[in-house]
């Protein structure tokens, strides 16, 4: 008798739990006022991130957070707080400045001005894809390997190998192609093609587990998605010349 009640109850509860996980979520953080952290202010970081956010929301994604300028916090990207922010979403975009193995913020007190690769542990809750619209976060010649520890279930990081520019429209190009059913890699390289020129290479890094490769991942709801590649057997990085 007890078994007859408990087992269906467990099934119902687990269904609710996973129904919650099946919700598709997007989050963005962007910084136009960069000078508190020593970088020059920019004009289009808000457009890149918010347009990306709004297009995904218009296509079935729940908007978890849209934090700009001083509201964009480095602590949202690292343990334990990322469990409520970056790692609670399926896809996240950050738009500011960047460099080898780090990207920047405009708020000095939550916790500081740079998120370093060594601080990133993404995907152990939810995050599959992160777009870092910042310069040179994934540099060639194996400079990108500083991010290997970030892949705790994370599928892909899309960013740049080289310098890039403050384009207003990159987020829109990217989001439109993602909801058209292009893969994350295809959509990112296309967005770079339409917004960059001489000397810019886009780059994407991913992890592979048991031959299941997220290289051809679409975002949820718009095509196939690989399983979480953790612990990875290997990591890869690829670039594309946008000139």
């Amino acid at each position, binding site marked *: 008798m007890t078994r007859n009640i408990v087992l269906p109850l467990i099934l119902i509860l*687990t269904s609710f739990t996973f129904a919650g996980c099946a919700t598709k979520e997007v989050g963005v953080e962007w910084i136009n006022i960069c000078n508190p*952290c*020593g*970088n*020059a202010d*920019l*004009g*289009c970081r*808000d*457009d890149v*991130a918010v347009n990306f956010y709004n297009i995904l929301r218009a296509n079935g994604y729940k908007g978890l*957070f849209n934090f*700009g300028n001083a509201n*964009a916090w480095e*602590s949202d990207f690292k343990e*334990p707080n990322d469990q*409520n922010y970056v790692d609670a979403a399926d896809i996240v975009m950050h738009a*500011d*400045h960047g*460099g*080898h193995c*780090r990207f920047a913020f405009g708020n000095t007190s939550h916790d500081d*001005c*740079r998120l370093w690769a*060594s601080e990133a542990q993404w995907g*152990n809750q939810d995050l599959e894809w992160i777009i870092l619209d*910042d*310069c040179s976060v994934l*540099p*060639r010649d194996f400079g990108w390997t500083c991010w290997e*520890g970030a892949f*705790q279930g994370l599928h892909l990081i899309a960013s740049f190998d*080289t*310098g*890039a*520019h*403050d384009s*207003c*429209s990159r987020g829109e*190009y990217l989001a439109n192609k993602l909801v058209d059913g292009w*893969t994350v890699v*295809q959509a990112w*390289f296309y967005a770079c093609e*339409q917004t*960059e020129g*001489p*000397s*810019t290479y886009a780059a994407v890094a991913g992890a*592979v587990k048991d031959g299941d490769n997220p*290289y*051809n991942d679409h975002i949820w709801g718009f095509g196939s998605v690989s399983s979480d590649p*953790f*612990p990875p*057997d*290997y990591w890869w*990085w*690829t*670039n*594309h010349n946008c*000139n």
Partner: protein
Amino acid sequence: MSTSRFFLFLLLTSGLLVANWQVQAKTLKTNIDKSSLDPSISKQIEVAFLVSLDELAQKMPTDMALYICAPDEVGATQREALQAFMGKRAYFELQEASGGVFAGDMDRLWAKAPQFDDTIESPDEKRIRIKAENFLTQINGLPGDQKTIRRVSFDTMELMDKDGKRRSLPMGVNVTYRRLLEGYEVVGPGGKLKVFHDTKGDVVGYQRVWRKLSLEKENQSLISINQVVERFKENPLGRALLSDVEKVEVKEVRLVYLEHGISAFQKYLQPVYLFSCIAHVKAADRVVQVPYVRYMEALVVPPENLWSSGRKQASDIRPKKLPKPGED
């Protein structure tokens, strides 16, 4: 997304997996010791010119022509030929703002990832150039009698396994044609004919953003190179998204025309100074070099802004206190 039986299995195994992940996460290496770097950076960026400013001042013109842009009419006429070449299922996009087109076999363009132990031969550049030219001939897309410059670039893949073994493999190859106006190159996201090849060298994608141009005014006065250099020194990064730059080396300064991307409305094609630079970025134990370019306004009286300034967007207001993990 799955059956209730699958959910139950996941629930039972997730606890074990999480514990396992946490243990393994600690074993992964990290390459940067951030404690050795001061997060506050110098706002003064040292600028060094690897080109002679005196020579530049002597050879730069004092005026250049200004052109009016109109949407390209050729791209739309290539649709059938592109589908004949790539197949009827190939993607085709026409943007009215520029008249630009993008086409691709999306099962092959940026769609094949090699496995770790795969062997891929480097594509032969000469063969790629011939294939690109044959393709453009078939779609009636060669630049014809327009003067162009042609470049070939190679995309790559790097792989590293958990034992630290590393491999590099060739990926796609790109052939880009840029037009020359009175000897000055048209650069930017637009102003290009581009043919994308896969690792076998086959053509798998094509882009044409090649606005129709007509001469608006000749002899438009240019800001002198000395003035531009002074402006550059005040802000060597401009719109580049680089952080923590200590020093910038300028490798080349030249005059070019700037054409915008496929969906941008552009009325004028105006000259700009293009600074090709190397940024020296602070890292934990060394300085790394990152290539970038900086576009600087060249006309004394520019007919329009070089770049869109976007719209002011709002941020969510966040709670004063962070929620604890697990609570929204």
